[in-house]
């Protein structure tokens, strides 16, 4: 049984999704979806445990050996990513039930489809991470993308529809670029297996086709991960999607795209080709810095708090790309640990906003006046998430910022380190605007609503406490991230 864990990671949610769609609306559907998410988390934890103990796990799909059949290959980097995505998937699913039943404009008969789509999206994300086959990445990418367009479009606001449409256009262009890139690689090497590609590419690396493949893959993946200035789909999609969907996608979807970027550029092309020959870092570094700075500034001027956090996500993605463009173990450790930490902080923040909108019906700044006193637990979680976003010591966000600054100083790029500190201050400004409105402004008369229900508060606080826990015990988020970084760069054990 345990040798089949890599494939079960994908097959379990894939089979559960249509089952959910077939069930009648009611508690059973949510229970099935929740059990599936919990099982996924268990599988991911077991996989990480085995990988850390025994090294790389290779699984031949259907018994066909590697270069011919599809190989699922789990090393420290993707076992770590699987754990993040499965954990967020489970926590948000616990949160989603109340939101779906009471806040989403879906007739009760359609509610099972929400869970089915959610599980399909989870399948796609987990599949992209676990697979060792380049074409398989594209297939799972489309599974997750198509289901996320659907999830975004069921937001209450009609602008959710246009946001989903815009994301569909941009996402499909990105995915097609990735498909073209993979096609060019196949033309040159005749293989789709990642390890096999890595072995065969150096012989043909100095050709225009491989360079074109590299360019197409870079643009395609950058569109999916919302690298500045290809982030235009993200703010609207996050702002108008239902809160549970925003929390899930913000914490996982762009992170998985960053993992795909790492996989292609470090494992398949190799750091030497990507950063030595093609000088990708010379493009990524300025884009990352411009993204961090401009998105943080734009976030300050938003009145819709969800939109503000969406712009903040663009800035946080910039930090991860910055870590990658340092091309060192410390820089990569920063990027990979920030994948984990950002999932925790943005999950907390968006779920706290979900609690606010559950009671108040909106998350614009003027409507949130005085919320801090009416909903102390919700806003408490928001403040913890915000502190972590800023990077205050003792929170998870501090750990990755610390490594990022360390990595920049290692390269002697002290202006970059200073910019990281300065943009953290911008984060203080926009988080403070929310805190000030929520705690120091009087609540309007006649809106005496109470605290959010426990079903929403418990998952929110679970992630909020995780922010604090992983700020103190860094063995998982930074320790394993370091091993993942070493595995990607091909150094160390």
């Amino acid at each position, binding site marked *: 049984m345990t040798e089949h864990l890599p494939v079960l990671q994908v097959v379990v949610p894939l089979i559960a999704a249509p089952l959910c769609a077939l069930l009648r609306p009611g508690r059973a559907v949510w229970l099935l979806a929740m059990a599936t998410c919990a099982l996924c988390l268990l599988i991911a934890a077991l996989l990480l445990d085995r990988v850390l103990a025994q090294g790389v796990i290779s699984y031949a799909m259907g018994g066909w050996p590697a270069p011919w059949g599809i190989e699922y290959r789990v090393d420290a980097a993707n076992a770590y990513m699987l754990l993040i995505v499965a954990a967020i998937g489970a926590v948000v699913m616990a949160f989603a039930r109340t939101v779906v039943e009471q806040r989403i404009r879906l007739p009760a008969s359609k509610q099972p489809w929400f869970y089915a789509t959610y599980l399909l999206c989870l399948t796609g994300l987990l599949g992209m991470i676990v697979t060792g086959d380049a*074409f398989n990445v*594209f*297939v799972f990418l*489309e599974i997750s993308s*198509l289901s996320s*367009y*659907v999830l975004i*479009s069921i937001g209450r606001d*009609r*602008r959710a*529809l*246009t946001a*989903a*449409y815009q994301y*569909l*256009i941009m996402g*499909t*262009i990105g*995915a*097609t670029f990735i*498909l*073209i890139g993979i*096609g060019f690689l*196949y*033309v040159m090497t005749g293989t*789709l297996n990642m390890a096999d590609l890595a072995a065969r590419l150096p012989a043909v690396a100095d050709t225009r086709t491989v360079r074109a493949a590299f360019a197409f893959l870079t643009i395609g993946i950058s569109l999916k991960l919302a690298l500045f200035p290809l982030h235009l789909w993200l703010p609207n999609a996050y702002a108008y999607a239902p809160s549970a969907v925003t929390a899930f996608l913000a914490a996982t979807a762009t992170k998985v795209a960053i993992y795909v970027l790492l996989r292609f550029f470090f494992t398949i092309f190799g750091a030497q080709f990507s950063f030595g020959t093609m000088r990708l870092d010379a493009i990524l570094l300025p884009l990352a810095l411009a993204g961090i700075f401009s998105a943080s500034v734009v976030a300050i001027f938003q009145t819709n708090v969800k939109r503000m956090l969406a712009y903040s996500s663009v800035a946080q993605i910039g930090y991860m790309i910055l870590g990658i463009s340092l091309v060192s173990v410390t820089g990569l450790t920063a990027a990979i640990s920030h994948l984990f930490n950002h999932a925790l902080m943005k999950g907390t923040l968006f779920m706290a906003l979900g609690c606010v909108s559950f009671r108040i019906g909106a998350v614009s700044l003027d409507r949130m006046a005085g919320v801090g006193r009416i909903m102390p637990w919700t806003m408490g979680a928001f403040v913890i998430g915000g502190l972590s976003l800023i990077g205050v010591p003792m929170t998870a966000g501090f750990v990755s910022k610390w490594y990022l600054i360390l990595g920049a100083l290692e390269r002697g790029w002290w202006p970059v380190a200073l910019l990281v500190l300065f943009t953290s201050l911008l984060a203080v400004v926009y988080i403070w605007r929310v805190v000030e409105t929520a705690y120091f402004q009087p609540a309007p008369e006649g809106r005496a609503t109470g605290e959010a229900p426990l079903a929403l508060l418990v998952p929110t606080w679970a992630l909020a406490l995780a922010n604090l826990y992983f700020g103190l015990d860094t063995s998982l988020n930074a320790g394993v991230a370091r091993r993942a970084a070493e595995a990607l760069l091909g150094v160390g054990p």
Partner: protein
Amino acid sequence: MQILGLYNYWIFIVLMMCGFYVVISRGNLVKKLVGLNIFQTSVFILYISMGKIAGGTAPILTGTATIYSNPVPHVLILTAIVVGIATTALGLALVVRIHEAYGTIEEDEIHAQSEDEAL
């Protein structure tokens, strides 16, 4: 004549740029989807034509043929065609919903209505 010999790739490039241009330049949401379709189809042609081997026949063991076309890209692109259909269907469904909500499928008119909402 190497340039003419690679005519399948030229078709791919021209189709791809046509589709891409339509996606960017048109404001009508359905026309955008048409462009997206052409864009995706061009990639299907890229994959299908790369599997062709000069003088090769269909990859069926008959005992007489010695050169076969490569079936793998054809199989791969079947998956991508399915994805393309799903994307188009979902895109059109969204356009129907947008039309219900806004009463128009012209991007600038939708944008104007959204601006009013924001004020």
